């Protein structure tokens, strides 16, 4: 299954040929983000020849780091790695390829304008504090009755945590056509076993309803809601309570960053793929998926300056690590129905367009909310400011209903991450780096035009500095040495698959989740074109560099290719909840 290439003779010393004019691989992967790279590593390790084509100058997609000023390492996109439960870590032996964790013991907290604060989400689990209702009541600022409910819930779930995570993220969605119900969902199966008090109604709740049922107050409650919102599942959307709750727990249980930042995660995946013979090219924009007899048979790369036009044949399949909205542009229209194209166009861009500021600071924020003593020497890496439900609703109203970025400082609900607090390599001695996120509308939706946020970025930053100062009085303007802003529009031109500048592809709503993500016919990673697959964070279960989409895709590829199912390696294990088409169709 080696790659075959027709070599052009070397022209002169040092003038190597980049890509042969025509070459063929078993699989061609369009896009070198975490999902494309992981798919490449899986297939290469399985024994297939693989070619990854990335349009940008660097592999890794949103798993990137930069050093715009010497000594300051920033995360333009992803910051945390929540994927500790990913089978890919052991299946691809990413540790062997250099992956190391910088553990975040104090994941963070939240604070509200009335002076209340909660600190210590990480170590309160790690150190077992969560199992003592009295300690927990004090930390969360709740009554003993409430903390007992929380401890009971968590204690029942904890032994099942790996299954709980994997039943949501690391399992391929079921086909909607099988007619399964909510109670057949994989996570419903796990919860039914784990929780003696499980009630089917939990599956219909929104996350906010679940938090209310537990009696959790602000700012802790909103901290949890934003933890979900800022990672996909919308906290007020019905049916999303369990996925939303799960994403919080992913943060609390898995929280770490790869040593050096998220690009190091990409490096370990890239190196695994390359070590198994995958070929990976950057600055290689794919302009077209070649389709013959309804089947994807390759791609055309087109870069008029260097690579020239190249045809790369795919003997087995083409895997798109591109936004679902880019699919119709890559496949000639006659192969897709108008209805399909229309529904792809109609997919909402809302839910994850972030205004990001990476700030070099000469001092770390010293938050002065009540509860400050709780963090002590263990500095909270993440911090949510304006952590009240009303402020979240105000911001959501601005962003999703009025289609504008917030202008009222009270609506500036900010999520700060201070990576230099746990990873000293991120900033020079005496300095720190803060990443700040604020939800804004996607450029396409903004009522004042697509560049409205870019134009307002100076004013937005002024408000951000003020809000940080409100919670951390030491953070006067002179403490901010340099700021690098990355708006949703910037994300779009820096990284073409961040359509809408959306960080995790698409919002997490029940009507765009599991069997319906991003559309029912795409949920199992197949597309209307045979042997063309969508493996991107717009596929299930979405973003966050969980290495989940490609793991799930491998189940489907085994169903579709005898060459894959007949060569299952010893290191592979499937999801416990996987249902094949053959099995699903017989239900």
């Amino acid at each position, binding site marked *: 299954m080696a790659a075959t290439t027709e070599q052009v003779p*070397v022209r002169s010393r*040092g003038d190597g040929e980049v890509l042969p004019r025509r070459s063929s691989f078993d699989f061609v992967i369009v896009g070198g983000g975490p999902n494309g790279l992981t798919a490449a590593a899986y297939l290469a390790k399985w024994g297939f020849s693989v070619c990854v084509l990335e349009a940008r100058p660097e592999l890794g997609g949103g798993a990137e780091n930069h*050093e715009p000023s010497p000594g300051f390492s920033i995360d333009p996109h992803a910051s945390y790695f929540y994927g500790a439960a990913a089978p890919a870590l052991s299946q691809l032996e990413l540790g062997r390829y*250099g*992956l190391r964790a910088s553990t975040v013991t104090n994941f963070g907290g939240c604070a509200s304008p009335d002076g209340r604060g909660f600190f210590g989400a990480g170590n309160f689990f790690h150190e077992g504090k969560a199992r003592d209702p009295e300690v927990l009541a004090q930390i969360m600022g709740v009554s003993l009755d409430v903390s007992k409910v929380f401890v009971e819930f968590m204690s029942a779930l904890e032994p099942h945590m790996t299954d709980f995570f994997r039943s949501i993220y690391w399992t391929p969605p079921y086909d909607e056509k099988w007619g399964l119900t909510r109670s057949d969902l994989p996570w419903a199966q796990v919860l039914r076993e784990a929780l003696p008090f499980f009630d089917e109604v939990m599956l219909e709740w929104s996350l906010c309803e679940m938090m209310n049922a537990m009696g959790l107050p602000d700012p802790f409650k909103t901290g949890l809601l934003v933890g979900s919102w800022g990672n996909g599942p919308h906290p007020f959307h019905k049916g999303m309570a369990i996925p939303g709750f799960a994403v919080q727990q992913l943060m609390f249980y898995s929280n770490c960053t790869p040593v050096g930042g998220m*690009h*190091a995660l990409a490096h370990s995946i890239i190196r695994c793929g390359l070590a198994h013979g995958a070929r990976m090219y950057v600055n290689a924009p794919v302009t077209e998926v070649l389709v013959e007899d309804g089947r994807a048979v390759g791609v055309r790369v087109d870069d008029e300056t260097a690579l020239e036009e190249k045809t790369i044949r795919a003997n087995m399949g083409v895997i798109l690590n591109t936004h679902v909205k880019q699919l119709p542009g890559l496949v000639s229209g006659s192969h897709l129905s108008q209805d399909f194209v229309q529904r792809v166009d109609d997919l909402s861009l809302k839910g994850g367009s972030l205004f990001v500021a990476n700030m070099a600071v000469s001092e770390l924020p010293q938050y002065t909310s009540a509860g400050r003593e709780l963090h002590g020497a263990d500095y909270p890496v993440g911090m949510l400011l304006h952590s009240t439900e009303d402020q979240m609703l105000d911001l959501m109203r601005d962003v999703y209903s009025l289609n504008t970025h917030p202008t009222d400082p009270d609506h500036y609900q900010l999520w700060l991450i201070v990576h230099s607090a746990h990873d000293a390599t991120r900033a020079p001695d005496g300095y720190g780096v803060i990443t700040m996120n604020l939800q804004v509308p996607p450029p396409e939706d903004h009522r004042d035009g697509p560049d409205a946020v870019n134009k307002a970025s100076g004013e937005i930053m002024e408000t951000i500095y003020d809000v940080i100062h409100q919670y951390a009085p030491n953070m006067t303007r002179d403490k901010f040495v340099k700021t690098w802003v990355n708006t949703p529009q910037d994300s779009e031109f820096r990284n073409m698959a961040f359509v809408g500048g959306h960080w995790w592809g698409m919002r997490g709503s029940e009507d765009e989740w599991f069997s319906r993500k991003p559309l029912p016919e795409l949920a199992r990673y197949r597309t209307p074109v045979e042997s063309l697959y969508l493996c991107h964070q717009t596929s299930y279960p979405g973003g966050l560099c969980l290495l989940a989409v490609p793991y799930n895709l491998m189940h489907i590829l085994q169903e579709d290719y005898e060459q894959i199912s007949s060569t299952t390696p010893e290191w592979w294990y499937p999801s416990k909840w996987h249902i094949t088409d053959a099995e699903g169709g017989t239900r």
Partner: protein
Amino acid sequence: MSDDLSSVYPNLAGNPLEGIEFPQEHETDCVVIGAGPNGLIAAMYLAAAGLDVVILERRYEIGGGLATEEILFPGHLVNTHATYHFMTDYMPALTDFDLGTRGLRFHKPNMQLRGRINGDDVLLCRSLEDSRDSMARGSIKDAVTFGDMALRFRKIVDGVLGPATYLPPGAPLDLMEALDRTPVGQDMLALSEQSAVEILQEYSLPDSTLATLLYAACQWGISPQESGMGFMVPLMVDRGMQKAYSYGGSHRLASSFARVILENGGLILDNAEVAAIEMDGSRAAGVRLADGRRIHARKAVLSSLDPQTTFLRLLPEDAAPKEIRSQAESWTWDKWSLMSVFFSVRGKPTLRNADGNLSGDTFETVLGFDDFDDVVAFLESVERGEIPKIAGHFTCESAFDKTLSQVAGNHTCFFQMPAPYDYPWDARRDEIVAEVTDLLDAHFDGFRASVVDAVLESPHEIERRLPNMVRGSIKHGDYNPVQMGNMRPNTDCSATRTAVPGLYVCGASTYPGGMVLGGPGYIGAHTVCEDLEHPFPREYTRGINTYLDTYFPDGLPVA
């Protein structure tokens, strides 16, 4: 089917990747410290030889000076260090491996170097005839003189300096005896005694041409009037007209090396600062990382770092002979560093009144000098720690590499100049950016108005990005007669072996030096294979064999 994870996860004690991540202890054949061009090249050959290799890099990205970074954030990339690749015609690493199919591609622009000296444009091209045409605008005699000079330099580089870059240095007497065998060798010996100023002033060429050539010869750190460094003139002048650009950025070169390492079973660890070289008795036997991890080396430890870091910081005090330590202590850093201002601009900068322009874009444009004496005076005052004025060279990288700008219609370019380390950079930062902008605005149409963003990187910033470039030493140490040849870094270690068994040095501070020559890494891998009696995976290139046959028919003398 196995699921080895569920037994350990979630790990409530702290590290969610415990049992999954890279182990605390790892054993391999060879450890290479530093993933700059030389470390990567060494690791590439050793891995291809079938040895188990781990290469360690302190930064978050491999490449060292082969760095392409988005410092004009967001959306504009620049090559923060190496932009011009001088040795692509000779470096065995480029032809020994099929790097093209691993993404590497060099461009060699024709208009290599434009000297704009006091309003006169001197054009040095990849094509000798195009250069001669530019000289002939004065008189045909100038063209003939220039052609003779270029040919003389080419013979020296092609016959001697190019191939010798990839062979261990000989003792001066052996080398003199060998070079004496041919007229080209004799010429090179004679040149070496002279200074750059002396060599160039022998030529009856217009002052603007000589000024341009002098800048080309000395810009990377040669004292114009220092004797004994004359061989750098043919090298830098000839190579200065044969520079290549790595499409996609210089980092692409590092990536293509890395691909070969990985495909041959090697391991690359970034974010892995080495804290110490560990000994097993008198032998170097591995390294300890700053995070406490240990990599044991069964066969060899190769350091591509500077001698002070290797011998004084990483090696235990009693491991190396005192003499090596004191030589490392007296190592001198580059006599000057570089100051760069990187710009993102709207539209491609167009040189005003470009004289004798050919089709295509100019790779390097020298600006701000009045004449030959001015270049000499400028470099000498930089060497004294001053910045007498803004003068240096300019390149619009995105003219050759549209991938550097992710914003349609925007370009990236830089102005760079020799600059001292000891200087109030932070205090004068804005002023200097303004002065550089003034200079460029005087030469490029509407430059100031087109600027989107500008970032100044001083020698301090160079050192902060790459601490191994101490005091901004882009070559890891000065080029002067006592730090070159078999004295780089000292007579005991210049052939990459050190007095410490199992320890090799193979970075820019080892013979033949820096500037992405790829020599030390190649020689280092060769030497390690030789000592292990392990076959080296590739033959010498034809050029190296010709050199050996011509000058060392009885083989290289044993050091």
